[in-house]
């Protein structure tokens, strides 16, 4: 505005917009969407960089692990084994990590996750595409079942608080949530699979029977469900207790709210009060928890998938770590990071849909 002289006609002296880069950036950053995307990108970059160097600090690299394997299994000398390993892997253990990082990031920016180190020719992205759906399916199904069932039971406990039903369910949910899920997995395998022989442990390995042809047939879907049954059961037992107790406490809090009492005084039916007044408000904090849990789908599946030989992304991660397959590990970590970031974003959006009080200003 300093350039504007009062005597000059407006058209000629159109104020030259003074361009301040910082101002511009600040205004740009004030935009909700821009800010959210920027934060997400920074998070993803930070995690990639951190894990990149961290996994290279782990004792042993892919070549050494393979050398060990060859020396032990095939009685090779160290030199023989080393030259074999070095010729098989597209990995130079002596290259500086910084050079590797620059190269990796360069590829990543072009959307290329690279090739697996230990099985050359296999693209990491293909591996992820092959294993990830199974994990999303099994853990997602488990989460859905335990969330719905847990929230329902929690509501019942709150309505019947301090009765026999409440005490029994509280005890059960405490026990369920106190024991880690892989212990439940082991117990199910040993008691029902090995001792009682209710199911054939060998037959249930993998994501579907080898004799099946994948396709949208009823038979194949049934087989898939059969194989997912045990991991899903374990995911449910491991997490349902937490959902029940959370929902119980949240519902008890909501039942004490004035607006629930007023709703009764208004003569609303109990089903309307349960759904729109108690349930709707009591489940709000549950959705935050749900979103956080979605982020942990992959991380939480590692041990369980390994235990049940369920070929999902978790067991793939376990295998890559044991082989020190840096690129594969890196790829899975990237997926984990993205899923955490995206699920938190979804939680924000979902929450603002459910609770008008946190709706972003300017949004109708």
């Amino acid at each position: 505005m300093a350039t504007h002289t009062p005597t000059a006609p407006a058209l000629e002296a159109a104020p030259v917009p003074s361009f301040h880069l910082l101002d511009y950036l600040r205004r740009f950053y004030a935009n909700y969407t821009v800010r959210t995307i920027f934060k997400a990108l920074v998070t993803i970059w930070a995690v990639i960089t951190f894990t990149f160097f961290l996994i290279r600090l782990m004792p042993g690299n892919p070549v050494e692990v393979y050398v060990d394997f060859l020396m032990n299994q095939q009685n090779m000398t160290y030199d023989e084994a080393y030259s074999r390993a070095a010729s098989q892997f597209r990995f130079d253990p002596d290259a500086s990590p910084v050079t590797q990082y620059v190269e990796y990031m360069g590829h990543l920016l072009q959307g290329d996750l690279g090739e697996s180190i230990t099985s050359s020719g296999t693209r990491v992205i293909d591996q992820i595409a092959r294993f990830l759906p199974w994990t999303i399916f099994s853990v997602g199904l488990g989460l859905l079942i335990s969330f719905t069932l847990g929230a329902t039971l929690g509501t019942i406990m709150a309505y019947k608080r301090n009765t026999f039903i409440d005490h029994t369910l509280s005890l059960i949910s405490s026990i369920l949530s106190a024991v880690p899920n892989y212990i439940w997995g082991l117990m199910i395998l040993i008691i029902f699979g090995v001792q009682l022989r209710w199911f054939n442990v060998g037959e249930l390995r993998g994501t579907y029977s080898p004799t099946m042809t994948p396709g949208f047939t009823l038979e194949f879907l049934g087989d898939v469900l059969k194989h997912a049954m045990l991991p899903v059961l374990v995911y449910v037992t491991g997490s349902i207790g937490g959902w029940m107790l959370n929902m119980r406490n949240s519902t008890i809090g909501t039942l004490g709210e004035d607006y629930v009492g007023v709703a009764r005084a208004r003569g609303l039916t109990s089903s309307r009060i349960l759904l729109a007044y108690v349930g709707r408000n009591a489940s709000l904090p549950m959705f935050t928890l749900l979103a956080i849990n979605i982020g942990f789908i992959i991380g939480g599946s590692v041990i369980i998938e390994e235990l049940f030989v369920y070929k999902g992304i978790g067991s793939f991660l376990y295998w890559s770590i044991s082989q020190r397959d840096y690129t594969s590990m890196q790829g899975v970590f990237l997926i984990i990071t993205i899923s955490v970031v995206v699920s938190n974003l979804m939680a924000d959006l979902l929450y603002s849909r459910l609770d008008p009080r946190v709706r972003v200003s300017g949004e109708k």
Partner: protein
Amino acid sequence: MIGAVKPTIVENTMKNDVILQVQDLSIVYQTPRGDVMATTDVSFDLRKGETMALIGESGSGKTTLSLSFIRMLPNSARVTKGKILYSRDGVTRDILEMSDNEIRRFRWSDCAMVFQGAQNAFNPVLRVRQQFADTAAAHGKTDKAWIKQRTLELFKLVRLDPERVYEAYPHEMSGGMRQRSLLALGVLLDPQIVILDEPTTALDILTQRAIIDVLKEMQQRLNFSIIFISHDLALAAEMASRVATVYAGEIVEEGSVEDIFYRHRHPYTLGLIRSVPRLSRQQDELMSIPGEPPNLITPPSGCKFHPRCMFASDKCKVDPPPLVEYEPGHRAACWHTDKVAAARIAFAAQD
């Protein structure tokens, strides 16, 4: 509304204009330490279009009493004695005898209750209009056009901007706006009785003023009766046509506003009125009632007020005084009404 259900009890002891008759109502709360006698032998009539104020200290049983009229007492409470007769369109029924569905429909369409702390009276995740529609639908009124028209009309009546409030969420309104919306919601179904439990406690003095004005106007237009619960005596005096003083779960004095404020005969009423600060009075003349409200698990013998009463005699410690009518419509339960009247006159001379 109530005409649709078959009456189980028809009593014709009620006078024409009486719509609520409470007879010898006793309520106890069952607690681990014993039964708390929250109200004992309470009787009064509420007439059509009148405003009755219940005044008394916190914990005297005012709220318990009003909750029993819509059967919303907590689970630990039991009605041990008495009747609550309600009359509409010539049919009289005992509220305590209604079935669960009957009482649900009775609530709000016959007797609405505006609770204290209305700040949280609305469900935060539903729009105000949805909560109006919910209420109407629960009582069989589903005509959307009618609901909308009625809602907007009532918003105008409580002096809110109808267009603005209609689509609003509760958190988008101020405390005063929410209180007015709740009053509008209260009369949505044209009830005969509106119970107001400390309706202005959480509001600033100007908003209180506005709410009271709105209430008076609404009552004039819609001709409902009000049960007004308050410990704000000035407010009670302004709103009510009749006042009942409640002490330790009993009505100790009842009468017209003039009876209670200028011709009171019970020492507790005297104490309440003398404990209101006045600009014209010296600070040291402000009187308070010594002691605390009694423990209602083991209430004092005789007159429950005697441990705190300056006029108490030996008789008061033994015999509970009956509620006696001194002038038409003015009842008091005290053995020493003469002394109270003398003290009142002496105090008035000082002022």
